[in-house]
């Protein structure tokens, strides 16, 4: 029998870094073929480290990784994309970190989810190309769908009656929109205005580019953000650190991305 190779290659996005010891760090990567994994980079915090800049969070890199007894070790790393415009803009950096944390929380180790890597790259590319940070709503809806928590948006999540275009309850426990009749049975959630309902449906079926072109106005985005945050918290049973940071950033004085004067839907 052939011996198992001791190294493998992967391409992925660095989601987070944890420092250990004096100069080492453990990085969590979401990769195309391996899914999420942790690996350690030895001496990476020294100025002379050859891998240092290639292992920054929110960098897309190619890796050569050596299998270790408990933890795998980065042998080489090379940047594919460093998303400079994202990391040099506080709103976009905070949004990208939030998306990275979502990926981290929604995935299990070494269990690649079909489509998730390209969704993650898509959102980073969109932010890099100057899309508004409201594309995070698209990411949330799509991530829920890819992870098996697809929201019921066209028919009631409880009785499957097709839904009319009207204000509708988004219920985290029911896993989607709930019709008027079922509303008393659904616990918690938020009533969404008809525009927000339409945007949710659009986020579910449109391409990222098409959704980014919507340029949601701040109120509509806030309505969706709050409702989706409830769904995500219900699903993960925890709060996200990046959500808190996004709130801190939102409280800062300008320059927020300029909302378009008529960010209307349809």
């Amino acid at each position, binding site marked *: 029998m052939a011996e198992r190779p001791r190294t493998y290659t992967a391409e992925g996005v660095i*989601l*987070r*870094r944890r420092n250990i*010891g*004096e100069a080492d760090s453990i990085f969590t990567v979401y990769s195309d073929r391996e899914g999420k994994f942790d690996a350690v980079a030895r001496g990476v915090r020294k*100025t*002379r480290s*050859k891998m*240092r*800049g*290639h292992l*920054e*969070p*929110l*960098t897309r890199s190619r890796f050569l990784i050596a299998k270790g007894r408990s933890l795998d070790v980065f042998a080489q790393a090379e*940047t594919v994309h*460093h998303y*400079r415009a994202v*990391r*040099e*803009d*506080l709103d976009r*950096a*905070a949004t990208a*970190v*939030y998306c*990275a*944390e979502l990926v981290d929380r929604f995935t299990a180790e070494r269990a690649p989810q079909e489509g998730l890597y390209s969704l993650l790259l898509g959102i980073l590319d969109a932010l890099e190309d100057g899309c508004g940070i409201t594309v995070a709503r698209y990411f949330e809806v799509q991530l829920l769908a890819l992870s098996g928590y697809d929201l019921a948006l066209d028919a009631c999540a409880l009785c499957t009656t097709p839904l009319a275009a009207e204000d509708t309850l988004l219920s985290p426990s029911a896993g989607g929109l709930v019709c008027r009749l079922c509303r008393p049975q659904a616990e918690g959630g938020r009533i969404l205005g008809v525009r927000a309902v339409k945007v949710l449906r659009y986020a579910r079926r449109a391409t990222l580019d098409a959704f980014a072109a919507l340029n949601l106005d701040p109120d509509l985005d806030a309505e969706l953000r709050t409702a989706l945050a409830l769904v995500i918290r219900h699903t993960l049973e925890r709060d996200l*650190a*990046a959500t*808190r*940071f*996004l709130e*801190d*950033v939102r409280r*800062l*004085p*300008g*320059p927020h991305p300029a909302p378009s004067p008529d960010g209307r839907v349809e």
Partner: protein
Amino acid sequence: MAEGAGTPEPIARLIEAFHRLPGIGPKSAQRLAYHILRVPPQEAEALASAIRDVKERIRFCSICLNITDTDPCAYCTDSRRDPSAICVVEQALDITAVERAGGFRGRYHVLHGVLNPIDGVGPEDLHIKELVTRLADGEVKEVIMATNSSLEGEATAMYIHRLVGPLGVKVTRLARGLPSGADLEYTDDLTLSRAFEGRQEI
């Protein structure tokens, strides 16, 4: 740490204490403990009292949050230093690095950490409020952000820029580029592209 049952309790305790220090493994801890055992009593006493003093006498400067034994600290009271420029660093150790490099003769501000959106370290966990207070009287003209050139360091610099920019203070960021002795071949694209933008005539 699993010390043999025959190890006298005071030695085991010392080994355990050394083992808690960063970068000290079980073997080094053992070696250090047995070294202490061998040195003359006054040398061991000096070490013990140095440790006690550092905990008893060192506190944060009430102005810049640097660690100091006099409050305000030496940098804040030195009248030869320029009070119109504040260099903001992540930790007190960074002041030593900036001082060693020389060239900066202003004052400092220590944040005692860095914004880390991934691990949930927010602005209220750092000493940012104290910085804003220092800017209130208009004496400070420039805030130099000397946080690390990492995602977290950049986020912190941008956050503070957005926060204090409206106060009319100039906020600057340390240049980013090649470290001396660096191999171009192994330099990441981000550093290299910034180095190109910041190139200077020879």
